[in-house]
Every structure is written in structure tokens, then in C-alpha cells.
């Protein structure tokens, strides 16, 4: 039995055990059982993924398992990359969830909007987390859905026929919906998020289904082998139709603009370990679907496909990072940052598509590798960041950055680990996000020399894409300086934040696993060279590339001149920092640093209320991008009753709404409602009318049969 088969076996049996044991286990052991089994399922994915990336192949067909046909599974290097990604995320999340869904903590309760000093949260006896816990993420339904969700995600990249893919895709959507709704009894906002998520994910499913059905009908078979063989016979129009449909469908799962609206809601309202799974793992499966169908099954397409993906990717990156840079809710910020990173991946895929259409396979290979590498890096740091946000939420019950702060001294481990993730997400060296953005930029800048005389479209779009990536990197830096600096440093801005304490061991261990993955990816990205080469061989239009030459410590790009060594940069920073520190120590001659009150211009002691908040931190950016963001201000001035010239209090509130959502969706929703209202007239409860429907229906079927027969 091959390793891949063993891994997939672990996944399947782990999921079955997870569902049964999760449902049967007593509530005290439930967190442990579900967490361990989730990690086991994830480990199966890692095993299968590593084996597939190592060059093994595997396939399996089980007939009569699914209602509409056989279940076909096949694993190649492309599947392997995503099996590894999802599996690794699940391992960390599983370990983490043992502590997170265990007893204690303030998460799950209604976030307190006013301030931390109300007694509802700080009350010692009530402990709302514990009470709400059995119904929230620790409930029987949620705990048994967790391993199943992970297994569904892991099997999606292994699916090798249209029906298998669709069934697994739907299973993944449903289990994740159950998990998103886990805390629906505790917070009303969860229901709204669940509704949006359900709507968007099913709209996406419809698009994917339509696209693949058209594809399968044209290719004359529904297995991926048949699709691959038949894709050449499709007319260009049909191919393009299929591509656009699956792009919309997979893109909605990936959270690209303007289909991202479910992301900030679902990610912020789901339990944090589920947010991590969804944001780090599930979203990348959207990318997987796009690459699999667009580049493998359809085998690449004309120039404008790439341009379309590039444009949408650029818009997603910019819009996502802008919203993230002004977001105040920590988990919402992370969700928008997911849209940003998906945008960067799409830029890579789109540019790869453009160059593949031009026949420049080396460049296409580098860019595709950059996209996949960024997906992996994003998964690592986003898992870590969402888990970190979960730890903060558990300790304080807060997601609002304006009320956080001072956690560096109260939760030192969480703070240090969150810093690792933030470094990666901000795309700064020596973080892991920097590596993949570097590869992406290298692919883009070499488009001049590598293509000789580029087309006008490329000459216009590639510089703009570089500008977008650069602006994204800059604003991403602001975003994570804000998330880390305001959320964790300085003095606490609320009493709950001041009362925070470190998370349980399992949660720290889960975060540590994710941080170790970040560090590994950041320092030794060249080891991804050989697996990425194997992955690219799956894709016919970019098959030639061997993008990252595996040259030990330095990252060298094959075919184009570009090299950088993240390991040596990190080492250089370490050596320079250590020698400066040693020198400073010598100079200090043992004199300690005096701890003094912060300088408040000689006035009264500085109050935490005087600290900069996330809102004030982002204020300059909000002003600069006023035209795009259109923040809403509310100023309430309350004068004294005696005189309207004397002011008792002034209240200022600022909100940055999602403008795309506010502009695009209300008309759509209104139309859907109107349509629903209208169709209600069809079903008015009259039995006679229903009988008439049945009769007319039967008659029309007979007529159709009669005419065609």
C-alpha cells in the first residue's frame, strides 16, 4: 500500500471516528477527542501530501458509492501541495482546539461594545464562556463536524471526477457552515454571518457546477482524465464560458473581490480555530480549483483569461489590504488580509496565464510557483494569526483592537508567536510572506527582458501589477504594525485586557507548530524547489519550468537572474543585532535601565485612554484613501440643559463600511426578494392549483417526449 493510500485511509477513518466519537464522547472528553482526531486526519493529509510531492502518484475508483456514479480519487503533485497545506493547518488547529474548546475563557460571549469595565464580563461568578460553552464551539455538533470538515477539505484536492469534486465540495461547505454557526445561540451576529456564507458558497457552487457540467458535456465524460482528453475538442467559446464560470465559483470560495463579502463576516463570527481552518486552508482550495480546472483540465487558455485573473487579483489585493488597514476588529482585519493575499496569489496565477499564453514557460513557471508558494506561506501565517486572535479572544472576550493592548506582558508566549505571524503577513524579511512576494516580484520584473518586446497589454498591465503588489506590501505593513502594536503592546486599554492571562498549553503548542512552519518556510524556502517543479509538470501550459533552483541556502530562480538568501539575511540580522547588543552591554557597564513613568509633558499621569487606538492609528490612511473608503462619521454633541453653549460631552464615532458590498449587493438582494415574493403567488395553498400544476407538468413532459421521440 502506498503512502498516499495510507494517508487517505487515515483521513477517511479518522473522520469516521471523529464523527462517531465526537457525538458519543462525554462532554468532558469531547474537546480532547475531537482535537486529537482532527490532528490525526490532518497528519494523514500531511503524509499523503508529502508522498505526492515526493513524486508518487495514486488513484482509486470506487463504484456505486455515490448516488450519481463512481467516486474517483487521484493524487498528483498539485493535489499533494494542497493536501500538505490543508493537513498541516489541521494538525496545528487540532492541537489548539483542545484548549480552545475546553472549559474556561471569555470567548463565545457577546463582545462588549461599550468598554471593558462593565461587570458583565469581569464578573467572577458568571463566567459566561463556561456557560455558553457547551452550546458553542464545544457542542456535540460542532466537535463532531470538525474532523469531518478537515477530511472533506483534504479529499477535495484528491477528487478526480466532476461528481466526486462537487459532492466533496458541498460536504466541505456544509460542515464549515455548521462550524460557522456553532456560536449562533450566543451572538445574534453569527446567524447573519451564516446566512451570508451559505448564500455565497452556494452561489459559488452553482457556478462551479454549471461550468463543470458544460465542460463534461462537451468533453464527453466526467472523470478528470476524460476532461483532460476532451478539452481540446471544445470550441473556444465553450472553453471560455467554462473558465469564467469556474473562476467565479472558485473565486467566491477564495474570497476575491467582489465575492468576498462572506469572508469578513464568517471569519470573524466563527470560533477562532474554525476561522483559521477556513481562512488558511479552505480559501486556498479556491485557488486549487482554479489552477486544476483552468491550467490542468482546460490546459491553459488565451491571453485574456490571464488578464482577467490578474485584474481581479489586483483589485482584490488592493481592496482587501485597504479595508484591513483601517479595520478595528482583529478577526475582521485578518479576514480582509485573506482577501489581500488571495489577490496576490491571483496576480501570480493571472500573470502566469498571460505568459503561458505567450509561450513563455519559464516566466509562467516562476509566477505559478510564486502563487502556490504564497498560498502555502499564507496558510502558515494566517493559521498562526487566527489562532493568536483566538487566544486573545479567549483571554479577554475582545476582538476590538481599540480596547486591547498590554498583552505583551500578560501573554508573552502568544505575543511572541503572533509577532512571528505578523512579520510573515507584513511581507518583511526575515518573515515567510516576504519570500513568496519576492518570487512574485521577480517573476514580474523579468517580464521585460525575458519576453524581448512585450505586448502592449503586458507593458501596461505588468507595471501596474508591480505597483499594486508594492502598495499592497506597504499597506500590509501598516495593517500588521497596527494589529500587533495596538493589540499587544503598550498599556491595556480596558480592564478585561488588563486582566488577561496566558492561554493553556495546548493552545500555545498549536500556535507554536504554526510558528515553526512559518520559520521553516521563511528560512529554507529553497527546499520547496523540487516539489514545486513536480507540481508544475502537472500543468501542461507551464510544464517546462523548474522555478526555484535548489542551491542550498540561497534562493535562486532558474532561467532568470535573481537570487536572495533569506537564511543569510536572518543570520546577518542576528549577528549584527547580537554584536550591537554585546557592545551596548559593554558600554552600559552593568548600569541597568531605569524604569520611569512615561513622559507626559510634565502633566498628570498618562491614562490608557490617552494612548493611540487602532482607529487613530489608521486615521492618516483613512484620510489619504478617503475617496475609496468613504468613512462614515458620527458626531454627537450634548450640551448642558442650562445652556446650549456649554458642552457636556462630545462623542465621535467612525465606521468604515465595505463600500463594494453596500453598492453591489442591496440591488441584488432586493431583486431576489422581489422574485421570491412573486413566486409566492404560485404556491398559495390551494390544492386545486397544485393538482393543476401536476397535470400541466405531466402533460408537457409527455408532449416533449412525444415530439422528440
Amino acid at each position: 500500500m502506498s503512502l498516499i493510500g495510507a494517508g487517505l485511509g487515515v483521513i477517511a477513518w479518522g473522520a469516521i471516528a471523529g464523527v462517531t466519537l465526537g457525538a458519543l464522547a462525554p462532554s468532558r472528553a469531547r474537546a480532547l477527542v475531537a482535537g486529537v482526531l482532527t490532528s490525526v486526519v490532518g497528519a494523514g493529509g500531511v503524509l499523503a501530501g508529502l508522498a505526492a510531492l515526493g513524486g508518487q502518484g495514486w488513484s482509486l475508483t470506487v463504484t456505486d458509492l455515490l448516488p450519481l456514479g463512481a467516486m474517483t480519487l487521484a493524487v498528483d503533485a498539485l493535489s499533494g501541495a494542497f493536501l500538505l497545506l490543508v493537513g498541516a493547518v489541521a494538525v496545528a488547529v487540532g492541537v489548539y482546539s483542545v484548549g480552545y474548546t475546553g472549559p474556561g475563557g471569555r470567548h463565545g460571549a457577546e463582545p462588549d461594545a461599550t468598554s471593558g469595565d462593565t461587570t458583565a464580563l469581569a464578573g467572577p461568578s458568571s463566567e459566561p464562556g463556561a456557560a455558553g460553552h457547551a452550546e458553542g464551539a464545544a457542542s456535540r455538533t460542532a466537535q463532531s463536524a470538525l474532523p469531518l470538515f478537515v477530511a472533506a477539505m483534504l479529499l477535495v484536492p484528491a477528487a478526480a471526477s466532476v461528481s466526486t469534486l462537487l459532492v466533496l465540495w458541498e460536504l466541505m461547505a456544509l460542515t464549515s457552515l455548521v462550524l460557522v454557526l456553532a456560536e449562533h445561540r450566543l451572538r445574534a451576529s453569527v446567524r447573519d454571518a451564516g446566512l451570508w456564507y451559505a448564500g455565497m458558497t452556494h452561489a459559488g457552487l452553482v457556478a462551479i457546477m454549471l461550468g463543470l457540467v458544460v465542460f463534461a458535456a462537451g468533453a464527453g465524460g466526467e472523470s478528470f482524465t476524460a476532461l483532460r482528453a476532451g478539452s481540446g475538442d471544445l470550441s473556444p467559446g465553450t472553453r471560455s464560458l467554462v473558465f469564467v464560470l469556474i473562476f467565479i465559483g472558485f473565486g467566491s470560495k477564495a474570497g476575491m473581490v467582489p465575492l468576498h463579502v462572506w469572508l469578513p463576516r464568517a471569519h470573524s463570527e466563527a470560533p477562532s480555530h474554525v476561522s483559521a481552518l477556513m481562512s488558511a486552508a479552505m480559501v486556498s482550495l479556491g485557488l486549487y480549483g482554479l489552477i486544476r480546472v483552468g491550467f490542468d483540465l482546460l490546459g491553459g487558455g488565451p491571453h485574456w483569461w490571464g488578464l482577467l485573473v490578474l485584474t481581479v487579483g489586483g483589485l482584490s489585493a488592493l481592496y482587501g489590504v485597504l479595508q484591513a488597514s483601517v479595520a478595528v476588529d482583529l478577526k475582521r482585519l485578518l479576514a480582509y488580509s485573506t482577501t489581500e493575499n488571495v489577490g496576490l496569489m491571483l496576480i501570480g496565477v493571472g500573470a502566469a496565464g498571460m505568459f503561458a499564453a505567450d509561450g513563455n514557460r519559464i516566466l509562467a513557471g516562476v509566477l505559478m510557483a510564486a502563487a502556490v508558494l504564497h498560498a502555502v506561506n499564507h496558510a502558515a501565517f494566517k493559521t498562526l494569526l487566527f489562532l493568536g486572535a483566538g487566544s486573545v479572544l479567549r483571554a479577554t472576550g475582545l476582538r476590538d483592537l481599540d480596547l486591547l493592548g498590554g498583552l505583551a506582558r500578560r501573554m508573552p508566549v502568544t505575543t511572541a508567536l503572533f509577532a512571528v505571524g505578523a512579520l510573515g503577513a507584513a511581507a518583511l524579511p526575515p518573515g515567510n510572506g516576504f519570500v513568496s512576494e519576492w518570487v512574485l516580484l521577480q517573476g514580474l520584473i523579468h517580464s521585460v527582458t525575458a519576453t524581448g518586446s512585450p505586448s502592449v497589454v503586458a507593458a501596461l498591465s505588468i507595471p501596474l501589477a508591480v505597483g499594486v503588489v508594492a502598495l499592497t506590501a506597504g499597506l500590509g505593513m501598516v495593517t500588521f504594525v497596527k494589529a500587533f502594536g495596538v493589540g499587544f503592546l503598550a498599556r491595556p486599554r480596558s480592564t478585561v485586557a488588563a486582566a488577561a492571562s496566558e492561554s493553556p498549553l495546548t493552545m500555545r503548542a498549536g500556535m507554536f507548530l504554526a510558528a515553526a512552519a512559518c520559520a521553516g518556510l521563511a528560512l529554507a524556502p529553497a527546499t520547496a524547489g523540487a516539489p514545486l517543479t513536480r507540481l508544475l509538470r502537472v500543468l501542461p501550459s507551464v510544464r517546462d519550468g523548474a522555478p526555484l533552483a535548489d542551491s542550498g541556502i540561497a534562493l535562486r530562480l532558474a532561467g532568470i537572474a535573481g537570487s536572495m538568501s533569506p537564511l543569510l539575511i536572518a543570520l546577518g540580522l542576528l549577528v549584527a543585532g547580537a554584536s550591537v547588543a554585546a557592545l551596548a552591554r559593554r558600554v552600559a557597564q552593568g548600569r541597568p535601565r531605569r524604569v520611569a513613568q512615561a513622559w507626559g509633558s510634565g502633566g498628570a499621569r498618562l491614562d490608557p485612554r490617552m494612548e493611540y487606538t487602532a482607529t487613530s492609528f489608521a486615521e492618516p490612511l483613512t484620510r489619504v484613501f478617503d475617496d475609496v473608503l468613504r468613512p462614515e462619521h458620527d458626531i454627537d454633541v450634548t450640551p448642558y440643559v442650562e445652556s446650549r453653549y456649554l458642552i457636556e460631552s462630545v462623542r465621535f464615532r467612525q465606521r468604515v463600511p465595505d463600500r463594494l458590498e453596500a453598492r453591489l449587493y442591496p440591488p441584488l438582494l432586493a431583486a431576489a426578494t422581489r422574485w421570491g415574493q412573486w413566486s409566492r403567488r404560485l404556491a398559495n395553498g390551494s390544492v386545486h392549483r397544485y393538482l393543476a400544476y401536476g397535470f400541466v407538468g405531466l402533460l408537457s413532459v409527455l408532449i416533449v417526449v412525444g415530439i422528440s421521440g
Partner: protein
Amino acid sequence: MSVLRKIIRTGRVAESAPQAPPASADAEGADRSGPEPVAPLSGSVQLRHVDAGSCNGCELEIASAFGPVYDAERYGLRLVASPRHADALLVTGPVTRNMADPLRKTYEATPAPRRVVAVGDCALNCGVFAGGHGVEGAVADVIPVDVEVPGCPPTPDVLIAALRGLTGR
């Protein structure tokens, strides 16, 4: 371009530096109670100015001491914004009740080794404000004073001579 013309036409306005005062024995008693310039401060002294209740006469003189004509910066003196960056406090005026506490806090916020320069008669003995109901006392009543610069207000020459005692330049 008018700026350029002005620069060329004006040339150097700084007067030539007077003889460096000997470290301790000094005209007008600028360094009466002050210590020798300590080694770490030599050549560079950053000053944080604290107006503890002055009539702003001394402020005008300080401003002109740092202006182009007297150019106190050539002796390694500089005014800074934060007491954390400062080596010496330049305190003017009698210490009013409201400023006594901020003055103490400023002194606390200054990293050691630190010096306090009391500028003007008011800072030394409350001047005409002595006994006023809002006056807490002279600077020396609130924080230890190292250098005293008398005058109402002290001329920039005197001020610079005293401060040069700190920098040793």
C-alpha cells in the same frame, strides 16, 4: 531665488566667539555653585527648557542666544523636545504652584547625569514675584540647581558663558 540672494547678501551674521571662559572662575559668577563640566557631557549638551512661570523675558533672551548672532549651537548646545534627550534643564521664572509638580517630573524624566541651570533672577530668588500667592518658591526650593545665571533678564552673552561652562567648549 530671493532666498538665495538674501543668503548671499547677508553672509555670516554670527559674531566671533568670545574667549572660552575658564571652567570655574568666571565673570558675573555664572558658575558660582556649579560643578566642573563632567566628562560625559563635554562638547555636547542638550537642553530642555522649562518655563516654570516666567514673564517670558528670559525666553526672549534664550531665543536670541540660539539665534544666528550669538549662535549658541557652535558650542555644542542644542534645545531638544524631550527631557529624555536632555542633559540639562534650563529653568526660567519663579516656580508657580501649578508648575512645581511638572518641574519635578521633568527632572525625574531626565537621564543621569543631569544638570539644572536656573536662568534669571526670578529663578534664583523669585525676583519681583517673591511672596506672591501663586509662587511656590525659587527653582532651588524644588529641584537641586547646579548652575545659576543671574540677570533680569540675563543677556545672551552671560547665558552662553554659563552654558559654555557645561560643555567645556
